[in-house]
């Protein structure tokens, strides 16, 4: 059984419908990329999983139906979400941002250990640990956001456009960090990306959205060969 199973998901912002029946399945330990052009509904899909959007259809996490749950309840179940634009707590320090990520945890020793882990994974953050998040560069804030998500010890990590607004080298290092994290921790990933080649460095499967519907889906090996993907996203 998949860790995350989305079936016939419809999502609405007020009166307008953004998703028209999405199906996604993510195996435990796997990594699925959600690709598509601007406005295809990628961010809305993640926000639906996190409970921030009005939906109909099924979203099942480890067999448990997430419909109607508040976002903080969903976070409690072990889902961490790094939103588009990083979602930093701007006036909080780096350290406080990370500790905020650990809000739901009661094991002080474990939290301290994970804080160490984050700082070793992201040395830039260690250097700026007392700075307010708003003073950090885009890349540093992205790492901070990922670190904050890790601090909650999630089973499922949702990443919304981690490379957005970053220089290619910085985006690359962010993805390398994610790869390093997966080696240390048992983590299932769903990554929304416009940059498909970057996403494919981690994802073993992908779903391509178009105007709120699934246009293509399948394992990486299959999709990489598909002409549309190549032309639209891989530019070859």
């Amino acid at each position, binding site marked *: 059984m998949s860790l995350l199973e989305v079936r016939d998901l419809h999502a609405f912002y007020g009166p307008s419908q953004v998703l028209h029946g999405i199906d996604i399945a993510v195996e435990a330990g796997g990594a699925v990329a959600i690709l598509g052009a601007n406005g295809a509904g990628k961010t809305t899909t993640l926000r639906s999983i996190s409970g921030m959007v009005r939906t109909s259809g099924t979203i099942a996490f480890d067999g448990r139906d997430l419909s109607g749950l508040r976002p*903080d309840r969903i976070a*409690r179940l072990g889902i961490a979400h790094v939103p588009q634009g990083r979602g930093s*707590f701007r006036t*909080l320090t780096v350290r406080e941002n990370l500790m*905020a*990520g650990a*809000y739901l945890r009661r094991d002080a020793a474990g939290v301290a250990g994970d804080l160490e882990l984050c700082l070793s994974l992201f040395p830039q953050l260690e250097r700026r640990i007392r700075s307010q998040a708003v003073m950090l560069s885009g890349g540093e804030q992205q790492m901070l956001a990922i670190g904050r998500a890790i601090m909650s010890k999630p089973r499922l990590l949702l990443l919304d456009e981690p490379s957005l607004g970053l220089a290619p080298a910085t985006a690359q290092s962010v993805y390398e960090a994610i790869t390093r994290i997966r080696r240390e921790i048992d983590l299932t990933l769903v990554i929304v990306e416009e940059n498909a080649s970057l996403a494919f460095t981690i994802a073993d499967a992908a779903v391509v959205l178009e105007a709120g519907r699934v246009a293509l889906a399948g394992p990486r090996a299959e999709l990489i060969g598909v002409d549309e993907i190549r032309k639209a996203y891989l530019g070859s």
Partner: protein
Amino acid sequence: MGQFIQLVIDGFANGSIYASLALALVLVRRSTGMINFAQGAMGVFTTYVALLASNGGAIPSPVAALAALVCGFVVGAFLQWGVVRRFNVRNAQTATVVSIALFMLVTGICGMAWGYVVRDYPSLFPNAVLPIGPAVVSVQSLGTAAVVIVVVVLLQLLFYRTKLGLSLRAVADNPESSQLVGMNVARLLMVGWGLAAVLGALAGVLVAPKVYLFPQMMDQVLVYALAAAILGGLDSPIGAVIAGWIIGIVEALAGVYVGIIGSDLKIAVPLIAIFVVLLVRPQGLLGRKEVARV
């Protein structure tokens, strides 16, 4: 010289009361993004409750004051949950009208329950004086200042050394991200309003002995507190507190040393100060500059 010291200390004491209410305004502003014009009226209500709790003097006033603080927390949390939450108070106009409505509602309830009469309210402190150098200072002034300082320090500790404080600041900073890390934003906003109301209740029991208890008791204090909050930069707690003290001291000195400003026009002093500061530095003394993102 003696008079000067006395004025400064009395001004500092008054300023502490303004600071307390100003801090309440900043707290609400940071967590919900609005200015609560009813903050003073809420403080009046809790002071009436304290009067009730003191049972005609049978219960000592510090205990009754404590009852007011607890009541304040409940009232604040309740108003946030019952009323404020149901409006889009991030919209400045809506927020202002809602808080004006609350002001009238709470003031009206006080008037209805306890009448528009002026009552005595016992001071928390003994009616004594202390010689300090060439000056003779009232214990009430010293006590008022001391209590507010202690409460402000406690709040600082809460906000910066506890998990609850971190979560309150997080919610004020970014409600959406707060939800994503598992914080119950609705409940935390109630706590934020509750704490703010505690500060308002504190201001109420401290000012009541001086100006007597009646439904519009805190209207003037509210103006001073608004001035202090705006002067300090609406999102800066320290700024609000310091501005409160400054306003209190300047007001006390101006009332005596500047001839044309009698006791009735003292209130013009902070208003003029704010006006000038806002023109020169719209974000207040310690506030952050607002940048319009295009």
